[in-house]
């Protein structure tokens, strides 16, 4: 959920853009991270752990913890908490560890 009114801060959001989450079209704002846009759209489960298949979500939001790895425009293991959203981006849940090209 996005904050619309805040007693101290003013949020200068970029242009509204479309992107794709597992094929589904969602809206976000240019300049924010992929994680922020997914969160605002109510997506909390970003993937599942390899062995136990437990749900994984956003934890640190600054690129430390690797809990938010997803496939972005075909590239696996992208830390979506620090990767910026771009128009038309394809964001997909990652299966497995991903491989080098």
């Amino acid at each position, binding site marked *: 959920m*996005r904050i619309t009114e805040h007693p101290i*801060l003013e949020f200068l959001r970029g242009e509204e853009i479309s992107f794709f989450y597992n094929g589904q079209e969602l809206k976000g704002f240019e300049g924010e991270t992929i994680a922020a846009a997914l969160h*605002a759209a109510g997506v909390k*489960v970003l993937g599942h752990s390899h062995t136990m298949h*437990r749900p994984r*979500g956003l934890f640190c*939001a600054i690129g430390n913890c690797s809990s938010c790895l997803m496939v972005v425009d075909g590239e696996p293991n992208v830390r979506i908490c620090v990767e910026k959203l771009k128009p038309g981006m394809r964001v997909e849940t990652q299966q497995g560890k991903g491989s080098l090209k």
Partner: protein
Amino acid sequence: MKEIEVLIIGGGPAGLSAASAAANLGASVLVLERDELPGGQLVKQTHKFFGSKKQYAGDRGFQIGNLLIEQCKTSAKVEVWTNTTALGIYEDGVVTAESQDEHVKIKPKKIIVATGASEKMIVFPNNDLPGIYGAGAVQTLMNVHGIVPGQRVLMIGAGNIGLIVSYQLMQAGVEIAAIIEAAPAIGGYLVHASKIRRAGVPILTSHTITEAYGQESVEGAVICKLDENWQPIQGTEQDLKVDVICLAVGLSPLTELCFQADCRMKYVPELSGHVPIRDEYLETTRPGLYVAGDVSGVEEASSAMVEGRLAGISAAYSLGYGLEAAPKLQEEALAELNELRSGPAGHKTMKGIMKLMDKGEVVC
């Protein structure tokens, strides 16, 4: 290969303060910042700072961050590389980094490591469920992106971070079910705690979380009371319906680069983990490598800024800059640090630094 006099790794409050201080004495400075923007965690702080005017008391964190960024921007001697992550410090003094997807090499004369800290985790069943965040993540989501993490929050930890982030959540319209703290007393400033209690949010001391539950993300948490030996008391369990659990249980210094650079390290609980041994001017056992801010022991941003200034002055002075001015500036910074650490919270830091400077018990 990029050559520079002073290389600063980390563009948060300590790193930016170090940059201005070294540049003011005449040294050429390069700051590496892994994020898109410098400022570190300061830019996410909406509360007003304490201390004296010298440490920007009365200003809000993000305003101080903007001021430090501005000081570096206007200095012809300071260069800031953003989207740049330092990778290693080698025996021959070369530092490697990933900068905007390129591998780069830097040859500095002096290095200041100001990498900050990362959040600690605590152990309880289902602590990996989506909806459980570090307090810093909640601040990033809320104060940078303007997005709330959920509807109803259980905050774990009543230190200053737990209290401040709870208040920020309330300002953003989120309900706080409770703040729990395992210790028998609130760790943060009473002024923060009072604001929260006045709004009707319970702060439960001697309480811990026994489990989180939920299918795909957090749906609730069970908390219980602890006895004087920190053991759960049977029958005191409470079930809280929350969709967010926020962990504010402390920070660990981000010392990987110090370990890798072969600085002698020591485990000091009062400083929140392994920290490099350093002299009073913040030079580590590796000559020419200084530390400043949370990486040298977790404290508040106010002391991180003064440590940054001290490290910056010391690095520039060792290169022959400010031969007249530097010693006086160093003493001033040391006096400010002593003053900042004179309160009850600072007592712990002082004890930690004493242990650190003690030559015995070197771990690594």
